[in-house]
């Protein structure tokens, strides 16, 4: 392989990793996985665990599906994808219940619901079935990070304004409270996440000047 082709290949992998984090972000641009983004973003801790679980599931399942993409019979491919994804999701759930019981209790059904998260199925169908395993894995990591970064941004704003904390540590000083500052209880409710995600989408569209121009 020539030096140029190698460089191109490297750039390609980097592009596959970076695209879902910014220009093709699964939440902000593709509007996928919003359900869980509303539910688990009250605190940074749950959002982080959810983001990591999601990254693990989407990268591993994309890798496995890509590895067997030539063997998977076309007529049962959706079922195969679903079995692989649910296996990884259940593994994650069991692991959390063994090592992070309190967090898994807070995440409740939402870890299990990663199975139905459109991002995972979407990447398996749209990317893993037609690309080699290492790229599919990178694509999965990129999408997990893209999803996770939005989750963490939303959770940061909600935890800071809603309970005056950051990762469970109080950051709003006591003297502000004694001066009459109050936490915005609205931030702890699901509609607040909806509004914040809307604002984030707006921000990204403004920054990239994308949106209407490219349509």
């Amino acid at each position, binding site marked *: 392989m020539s030096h140029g082709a190698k460089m191109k290949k490297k750039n390609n992998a980097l592009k596959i990793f970076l695209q879902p984090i910014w220009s093709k972000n699964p939440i902000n641009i593709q509007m996928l996985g919003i359900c869980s983004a509303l*539910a688990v973003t009250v605190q940074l801790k749950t959002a982080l665990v959810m983001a990591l679980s999601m990254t693990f599931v989407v990268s591993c399942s994309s890798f496995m599906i890509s590895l067997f993409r030539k*063997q*998977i*019979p076309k*007529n*049962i491919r959706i*079922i*195969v994808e679903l*079995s*692989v994804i649910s*296996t990884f999701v*259940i*593994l994650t759930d*069991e*692991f959390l*219940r*063994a*090592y992070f*019981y*309190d967090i898994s*209790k807070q995440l*409740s*059904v939402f870890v299990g619901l990663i199975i139905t998260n459109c991002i995972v199925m979407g990447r398996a169908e749209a990317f893993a079935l037609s690309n080699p395993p290492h790229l599919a894995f990178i694509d999965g990591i990129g999408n997990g990070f893209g999803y996770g970064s939005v989750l963490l941004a939303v959770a940061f704003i909600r935890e800071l304004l809603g309970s005056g904390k950051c990762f*469970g540590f109080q950051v709003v000083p006591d003297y502000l409270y004694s001066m009459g500052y109050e936490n915005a209880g609205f931030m702890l409710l*699901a509609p607040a996440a909806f509004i914040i995600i809307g604002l984030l989408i707006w921000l990204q569209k403004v920054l990239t000047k994308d949106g209407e121009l490219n349509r």
Partner: protein
Amino acid sequence: MSDRMKTICFAFALCLVCSLLLTAASTGLKPLQVKNIQMDRKKNILLAIGLIDSRRIYQASEIDRLYKKNIFKYDTDQTGTIIDPSAAPEMAQDNLLPIYLAIDNNNKIISYIIPIETRGLWGKINGYLALQSDGSTIKGFTVYKHFETPGLGGEIEKKWFQKNFVGKKIVDQNNHFMSISIAKGRAADQVPEEKLPNYVDGISGATLTGQYLTKGLQKILSEYEPASVRFRQNLLQCRMQTDEPWCENEKEK
């Protein structure tokens, strides 16, 4: 090999690999999960009597220490008598009701805790109801396991709902047994003022969960009523027996 055969073989192999993986994970992680669940129950008992704060994070060893120091499990028979753990075996086991006692350093019972297990809308609700040693005032209520809808009936596990139980009564104005009920919406809008001590605010959108919980608490509290009566009449006393306090009926002494 025909395409159909290939498909069937692939599906079979996939199922085999996935199920083996899941079985291994499930059996391998089981001991840790069981330990977590036991720790969670202990934590909920301590939460019910207000010994720990739900907003703080505790180490497992800390929970264990607090539990060992303060909480003692006994059985009561149908007359509400606490069974001497050393003399219990000849009693039929299914007639006994488990009861947890919170005992302070001076061997005084500060609270007794009743395990709650009742039907909910989608499955069983498990929790603890702690009562003060006067036998009529609720000290706290917690839920550690349920299958209610998250955001609706699932709110029974939240502090805002559970803190409404604190200070409520399981007796009416004349000191007769009257179970605690979950109102439909705000209790103050629904029931006359003299009954307010027996009602807690309900969860909007979760009327059925509230009804099942009301029924379950009614049933369980009436089963434990003989024991509660003894507490109300202040008949129980504890003394230190070797390493563990032992409580019994003063009258019979």
